[in-house]
């Protein structure tokens, strides 16, 4: 059986790096999905959360969404360059992506400091003093979801960096760019869901 031709991909034939990455991504979806399910249900249960959502910085969130969408585009460009085995272009697009990740994290850090300044923290003792017990949970979930996502941004950027360095050094392993890129897209997709849930619905 010769399976190299494009049209005859059987239902289970896929290179192993990509296969492993897709499996990982499916697993990550369930983790974040669990958090989003918890968030959605509590959001339905406590209408008071809408008021809390107004305290988030929509402008910063919008810029961040744009940054991540753009970085996703950069990663596919890097993949396109990797297919052509063009090391310089791969390096260029990956560096742009990592720059986007840094911008994202910077804006997120600015948001966090602002919110902590307002008294919204993981445990929000300030809200408790005002008698807003239920609302503390909103901020706990906010920090959990965005924090976990932020960790994935860091992880994805590091993965991209190391893969790029290895590719630049050895001039091979180009398929790893796509695998790391897949992970980066997953980070983007999670944000696509987090952004409206956290920032837009009041």
């Amino acid at each position: 059986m010769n399976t190299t031709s494009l049209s005859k991909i059987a239902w289970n034939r896929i290179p192993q790096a990509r296969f492993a990455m897709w499996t990982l991504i499916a697993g990550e979806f369930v983790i974040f999905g669990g958090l989003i399910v918890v968030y959605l249900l509590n959001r339905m249960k406590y209408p008071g959360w809408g008021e809390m959502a107004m305290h988030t910085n929509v402008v910063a969130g919008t810029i961040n969404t744009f940054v991540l969408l753009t970085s996703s585009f950069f990663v596919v460009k890097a993949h396109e360059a990797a297919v052509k085995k063009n090391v310089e272009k791969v390096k260029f697009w990956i560096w742009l992506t990592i720059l986007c990740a840094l911008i994202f994290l910077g804006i997120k850090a600015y948001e966090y400091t602002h919110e902590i300044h307002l008294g919204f923290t993981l445990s929000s003792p300030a809200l408790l003093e005002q008698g807003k017990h239920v609302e503390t949970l909103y901020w706990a979930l906010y920090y959990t979801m965005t924090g976990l996502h932020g960790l994935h941004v860091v992880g994805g950027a590091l993965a991209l960096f190391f893969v790029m360095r290895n590719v630049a050094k050895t001039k091979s392993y180009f398929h790893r760019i796509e695998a790391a890129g897949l992970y980066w897209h997953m980070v983007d997709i999670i944000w696509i869901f987090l952004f409206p849930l956290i920032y837009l619905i009041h």
Partner: protein
Amino acid sequence: MSTHGKPQGLEHELWVPAEDDYHGHPNYLKVYIYLLILFAITVFASLIPNPMIVFIVVFSISIIKASMVILNFMHLKWEPNIIWYMLLLALIALAFLFLGLYPDTVPIERFFVPNG
């Protein structure tokens, strides 16, 4: 890795080329621009005063955006079925989780014994 003793003969049937890029490439720029347009719609839709409508509009656009990224940027369109099945199973699991949790979360009123 260097200590690996490799057996003789054919390793295994060449299931797939390990590095060859055998899937198609959509026009990434076009997809990116569509994504930006949808993103703009999302942001403007959030200005609607009714939160329920905002939720429905914004969440469905999110699903469209996510599937565009998955299908085009992540090349799911060209991936074999097993990846689809796997993602489908993840969605099924999440749907069950949501349905199972719903009756025990949303309609429940909080209660504390007064003067407890």
